[in-house]
């Protein structure tokens, strides 16, 4: 989808024209206001103070009128301030760092694959090709149960992994924020593929002895974009409950979902999904305003499930041998592109500066009235955001979004490096990416961050955060021991 303007954008003159246009349209109000104020000032100076006093006396106000007007003003002001949505602050978040002993190098993964799929060399070959092109590194981690030959994905092992990941992330969050477990008012846990009874949120309540009147929710089955759905839910709840803390835990438990059959479309998740989790503290308390890292500005959710193809594109089902796995359809990328377009159409007017919106509107009108052959204008989102966190679903997803949104390599660096170091950790990958940007020292006060996630259904969800204070680098985060090695160059194909 290329630009509609003729391609002499290389010309320097055009660049300045563009800059001038943007400045003009984005600051139109100020530009119009300044001459008006100057005119009024000149008029006032011309009239002189006595004239103004006479003007004032000629307006007869009696007491009733003054009282009514003041009450009206106070009433309108109160209604305005009461109905303003409460600001939701992200105080801090913690990502889970898997132990080094859970590391899975490519060679080990392939050997295990070979030993388990002894009778299907073609499937092993397929997995090898996927792994070579996946963009993953040699330090991604799988849970202990998957290291066994053959893997033992029992419920006990799944619970063990859940406890390990969630409790570590939670402990880290409590330590970072100084939050006491008794102060948690809302708890939301999302984990798509593992949903035991009692739920994972109950597991947390049991472990940390949370209050009995806590509002807890457990979202399952909602795919990789469930993290942002949980944030949306937390935000809505924080509008209803004043002065509250909400903890959101996003994770994906790999153990029960290791596909042990040999259907190719279902082997793909085995190669990409890795262990990870994140715990986030959101709050609407005023005292957190100064120490919060971010403020939540918008959450936009788009669901394409009404379309059959979109609905079936990520589908959990049994293969011919009765083994359950998640099948990814071939038109996944195309559907993701469609969902993204929908999401952008909604989020664009909320975040884009006036200059871009005007251009888009003009092109739309032009296409409708003058010439339908004009290519649609893709707004430049780089003007609306400083940082992008694209869900590290796979190399293809990041490539596709980079192309569609015309992002530079530096904008997608956080996503690519997270994919390399941690693999596809599903809903928590957005938080690893945020952490990367922070640890690189790039997050300054006032920066706007756009988090985009895709998930089964097919959903595309976005969240927009505004940085509240410049964030200093720390040592208690998952990137602390390797941030200096990044960014690395990730070759197209890694020879195994």
């Amino acid at each position, binding site marked *: 989808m290329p630009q509609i303007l003729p391609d002499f954008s290389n010309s320097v003159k055009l660049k300045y024209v563009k800059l001038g246009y943007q400045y003009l349209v984005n600051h139109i109000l100020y530009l119009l206001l300044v001459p008006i104020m100057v005119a009024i000032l000149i008029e006032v100076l011309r009239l002189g103070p006595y004239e103004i006093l006479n003007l004032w006396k000629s307006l007869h106000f009696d007491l009733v009128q003054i009282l009514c007007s003041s009450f009206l003003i106070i009433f309108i002001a109160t209604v305005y301030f009461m109905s303003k949505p409460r600001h939701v602050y992200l105080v801090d978040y913690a990502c889970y760092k898997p132990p*080094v*002993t859970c*590391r*899975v*190098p*490519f*060679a*080990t993964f*392939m*050997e*295990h694959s*070979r*030993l388990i799929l002894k009778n299907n060399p073609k499937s092993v070959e397929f997995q090898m090709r996927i792994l070579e092109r996946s963009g993953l*590194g*040699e*330090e991604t981690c799988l849970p202990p149960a998957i*290291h*066994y*030959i053959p893997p*033992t994905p029992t419920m006990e092992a799944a619970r063990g992994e859940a406890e390990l990941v969630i409790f570590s992330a939670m402990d880290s969050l409590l330590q970072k924020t100084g939050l006491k477990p008794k102060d948690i008012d809302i708890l939301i846990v999302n984990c798509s593929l593992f949903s035991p009874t009692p739920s994972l949120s109950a597991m947390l309540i049991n472990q940390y002895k949370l209050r009995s009147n806590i509002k807890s929710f457990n979202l399952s089955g909602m795919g990789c974009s469930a993290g942002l759905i949980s944030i949306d839910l937390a935000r809505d709840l924080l509008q209803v409950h004043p002065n509250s803390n909400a903890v959101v835990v996003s994770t994906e438990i790999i153990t029960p979902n290791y596909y042990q059959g040999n259907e190719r479309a279902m082997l793909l998740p085995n190669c990409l999904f890795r262990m990870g989790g994140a715990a986030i503290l959101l709050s609407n308390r005023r005292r957190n305003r100064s120490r919060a890292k971010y403020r939540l500005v918008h959450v936009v959710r788009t669901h394409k499930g009404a379309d059959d193809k979109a609905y079936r594109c990520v589908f959990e089902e049994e293969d011919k041998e009765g083994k359950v796995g998640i099948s990814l359809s071939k038109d996944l990328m195309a559907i993701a592109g469609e969902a993204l377009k929908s999401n952008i159409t909604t989020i664009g007017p909320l975040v884009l500066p006036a200059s871009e919106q005007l251009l888009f509107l003009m092109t739309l009108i032009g296409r409708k009235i003058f010439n339908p052959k004009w290519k649609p204008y893709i707004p430049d989102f780089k003007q609306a955001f400083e940082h992008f966190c694209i869900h590290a679903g796979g190399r293809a997803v990041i490539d596709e979004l980079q192309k569609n949104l015309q992002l530079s390599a530096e904008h997608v660096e956080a996503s690519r490096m997270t994919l390399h170091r941690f693999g596809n950790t599903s809903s928590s990958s957005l938080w690893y990416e945020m952490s990367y940007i922070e640890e690189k020292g790039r997050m300054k006060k006032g920066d706007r961050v756009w988090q985009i996630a895709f998930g089964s259904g097919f959903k595309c969800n976005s969240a927009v955060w505004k940085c509240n204070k410049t964030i200093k680098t720390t040592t208690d985060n998952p990137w602390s021991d390797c941030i200096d090695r990044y960014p690395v160059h990730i070759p197209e194909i890694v020879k*195994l």
Partner: protein
Amino acid sequence: MTSEMITYICKRTVVSTKPAQAGKCNPLSVFDRLMEKNHIRIVYYFPSTRNGEPGVVTKKLRESLSHVLTCFPIVTGRLQKKDDGHWMIKCNDAGVRMVEARAQGSVEEWLKNVNRDKELMLVTWEDMFHKPYFWATFYVQLTEFEEGGLAIGFSCSHLLADPTSATMFVKAWADTTLAGTMLAPPFFHPLPPPRLGNKNPNHNPYTDLINHYKSTIDDRSPAFTNNITNYVTATLAFSGPMVQACMLDTSRPSPFEAMAGLLWVCVSKVKGMKQGLISMSICLDMRKQLGLDKGFFGNCLVYNKVHHAESLLDKSELSEAARAVGESVTKMNNERIMDLIEWLEHHDYEFPPLMNGHDLICANLEDLDPYATLFEEGFVPIRVSYYVEPVFGIGQILVLQSPPSEGPLSRMVMVTLPADELSKLCDDDLILRFNPTILMG
């Protein structure tokens, strides 16, 4: 009965904590390549520790193994053939296989009733796959005894390590578990290169050593296809004073020569030799002779045939045997080994030989120091057993160190012979003169 005593819990792969440098390859030396058909198995027995919980020790050891593997990229690599057809290790980080098991009873009880077959159950091993690139070359088995104690079974392909290197690896693992650092880091470098220039034109390479290797390589006899012999292993412990007495009898200054001589005579007798001795080769570690660091990781064992004078009076057969062994040992010096290396570099062979396939092999493993392997402060191994498999031909004798509580001169000898011959050996008069304690067999 034995299969009920040990329950296997799981098998997994342990990898290093830091990724290996991509694309690194290590070629194997000439000594390495000769040992393709063999593998080593070592069993360490540790007494009960304070940690009563089952599985805690295993977890700790698994984590420290991950840490130590970072310094041994060869151990986690895989075999691949170079363009010239020779083996090399591709350091691809694939890891070592680990098996966890649990056994009934305590370590002490087990040691009272153990035999070769039972002991080998404590060490897991898989023969080379058809596609060696996916075959793990190192295996570890951790067996926790329910009533106390731990057995660590370590096995590896002889292509990559000899008993000295294997012991060094386990010691490095123990050091890492105990203190977090290794006391003797490993060295991975090739054997010394051939000397250039200044060669004496009249220099006569020591043809005996080379001939021995040549005949072993050319030997395609059915010795190693005929595998129906039932070999049994016995562990004989000779106390310090007894070893000293043997040394005095044979008037040899080294315990190895005395022990080797003694066993040579006794094994010849049980094999039915009325006069003279059966053919024997000794196997020695040549690190010192080649000027290599003790941390040299790889094969450095050289085999040499022992020649003895025929027709002697019976009484001094023992001293003659020991003398012959001593002579063979002295003959293995730097110059001759370098000649051997040169010869091996220039002579390719189609099929790898079986170095221990024909003669009686007597290997000197006295200096390995396995009892310094401490995983926990103050817990010295009760016993360490070595096996070089597979055993073919006449048999095998390994002369090992004894636990330090027995004294510096005491020795443990592991003898592997066909079952009937071994029982005769243990009843032999000459052996019984030195009063060995039969620990196993």
